């Protein structure tokens, strides 16, 4: 699908490499400009506690955006990431609080639930040929409803599992390097990003991810079982959403069953700002990470400057359009 790939003539590899480097550089430059700008505008911005607050605000959306990136690169879309996140948190609550099992069971249950739901979406898309938008829209509503049903519409608290809040709020780095209390949630975000980046760049699964997004038909015609790979990518993405579910539940020390809808759009916004094409076949995890950081820095910075909330929303919307326009303009020149 990507015009970039078909248009390249002389040395596609070099061009792709340069394009990818530019994309990262571009997003990174915007991030730096924002950080410098806010720092100049307010002395409260570049404080350790605020930097940590920004990173912490990025962690959940960042992990969701990484999950969404994998699916978007295949040329699909996943609207269920927000409510799936909530659903996995509720499942962790059921296992840890209702059933009273030890922490590892809750973690495994959340990840397995995420992967299973991703598997179901992937199967509906690959085998039943339901368009990804519709299949994951249905999944979004199913999971939203199930979260409310299972929890009885009440938050499930993790008070019986005192180690649970440590998942996101504890600080392994702070224990090793005193004075750098970066919460584990942020560490987990970066580990997930590194792992997803490795999978995309260095494994067969990653290669098929791009191939499906670029030209699914030709991949199929060359004898590859595309359905199987597609389902695997949705399942992997679902598993990563399970990590986000654990992070948000740990951070709030509760599974909030009504939360989640709307989070998919913020995740997709981070992916798009990061330069991943909604048409598929192109994208990077680093870009997505920077995209999520840009969103968090922007929201936090506007709040630090006490900008009226109505205008915060307007500015965020404008930045999304600006970011995508600039990226497209650059691609046209390339």
């Amino acid at each position, binding site marked *: 699908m990507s015009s970039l790939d078909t248009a390249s003539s002389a040395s596609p590899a070099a061009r792709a490499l340069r394009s990818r480097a530019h994309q990262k550089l571009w997003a990174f430059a915007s991030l730096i400009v924002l950080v410098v700008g806010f720092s100049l505008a307010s002395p409260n911005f570049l404080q350790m506690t605020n930097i940590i607050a920004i990173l912490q605000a990025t962690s959940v959306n960042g992990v969701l955006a990484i999950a969404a990136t994998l699916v978007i690169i295949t040329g699909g879309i996943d609207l269920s990431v927000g409510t799936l996140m909530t659903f996995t948190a509720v499942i962790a609550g059921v296992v840890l609080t209702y059933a009273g099992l030890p922490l590892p069971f809750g973690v495994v249950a959340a990840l397995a639930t995420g992967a299973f739901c991703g598997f179901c979406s992937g199967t509906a898309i690959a085998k039943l040929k339901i368009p990804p938008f519709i299949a994951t829209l249905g999944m979004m509503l199913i999971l939203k409803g199930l979260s409310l049903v299972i929890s009885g519409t009440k938050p499930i608290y993790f008070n019986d599992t005192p180690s649970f809040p440590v998942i996101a709020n504890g600080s392994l780095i702070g224990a090793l390097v005193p004075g750098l209390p970066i919460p584990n949630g942020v560490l987990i975000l970066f580990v997930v990003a590194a792992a997803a980046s490795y999978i995309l760049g260095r494994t067969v699964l990653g290669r098929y991810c791009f191939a499906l997004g670029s030209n699914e038909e030709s991949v199929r015609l060359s004898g590859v079982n595309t359905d199987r790979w597609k389902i695997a990518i949705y399942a992997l993405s679902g598993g990563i959403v399970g990590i986000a579910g654990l992070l948000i539940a740990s951070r709030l020390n509760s599974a909030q069953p009504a939360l989640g809808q709307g989070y998919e759009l913020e995740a997709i916004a981070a992916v798009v700002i990061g330069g991943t094409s909604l048409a598929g076949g192109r994208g990077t995890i680093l870009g997505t990470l920077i995209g999520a950081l840009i969103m968090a820095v922007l929201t936090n910075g506007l709040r630090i400057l006490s900008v009226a909330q109505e205008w915060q929303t307007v500015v965020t919307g404008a930045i999304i359009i*600006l970011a995508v326009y600039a990226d497209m303009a650059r691609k046209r020149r390339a």
Partner: protein
Amino acid sequence: MFTRRTTLGALGALALTTTGSVAFAQDAMSVALISKGFQHQFWQAVKAGADQAAQELGVEVTFEGPDNETMVDRQIDMLSAALARNPDAIGFAALDSQAAIPLLRQAQDASIPIIAFDSGVDSDIPVSTAATDNLAAAALAADKMAELIGGEGQVAVVAHDQTSRTGIDRVDGFVNRMAEAHPNIEIVTVQYGGGDQLQSTELTKSILAGNPELDGIFGANEGSAIGVVNGVREMNAQNITVIGFDSGTQQKEAIRSGLMAGAITQNPVGIGYETVRAAVAAAKGETVEPVIDTGFYWYDATNMEEPEIAAVLYD
């Protein structure tokens, strides 16, 4: 090439942001209010009260809240950004008390006094709570309902949720008062519509269909009450006494037209005003009442134009 474009774009965005902050004075005392919502008219009325107090007391007030009342984590992010600004005091209407406790401790450590508003925070950190006594307010609704339907019959409740403090207290206040003081009135059902008008409309229609003998319905917040009015209108049900809660254009209109018998109003302007007043007092080290009852009123077509009532009703 593209870097220049980017830089210009980002600078443009920054220009937007800085213009918003020019008015932010350096010396004045600053109070950050983190509410449960923002777009809802009720919260805008709280904001109006806060702005009024800010002007009278000569302090800077910021007011923020998440898009809807499920976004617990977004509210936490807002609270931590407010803390980073290092205000003199913080007003906080917790969506989930437990989730906010680590940040409230952080505020306590930084000696920033916290005033809880709208609903309490389950913690001893807030120095004061400015809120409506929802149990008493809903009990008043029960008394009015009993009076209007003649002391006997069947009534139903459409409430917003069973998780928030206001949802629990208003249902309990209404149901308990009926049981204690009006034994001949039966509460046939309590249903929850999430405060969503459409959902509450559908709920009301099914309640009316299932209970042909029904005499009255209590809608426990603005969205629920409007839903009840819509449901009664769509089913063309006769002789149903509707009692609402809070105000807003639609509810006021329903009362004027007679579809709704009357409603309980809180004093949102007073909540915002008292919160800022208490926050400033606490920041100055003065003693503050631990509980500030911001009051509530019954209003109907006969008294809604009176200055005392009109002042607390919002559109």
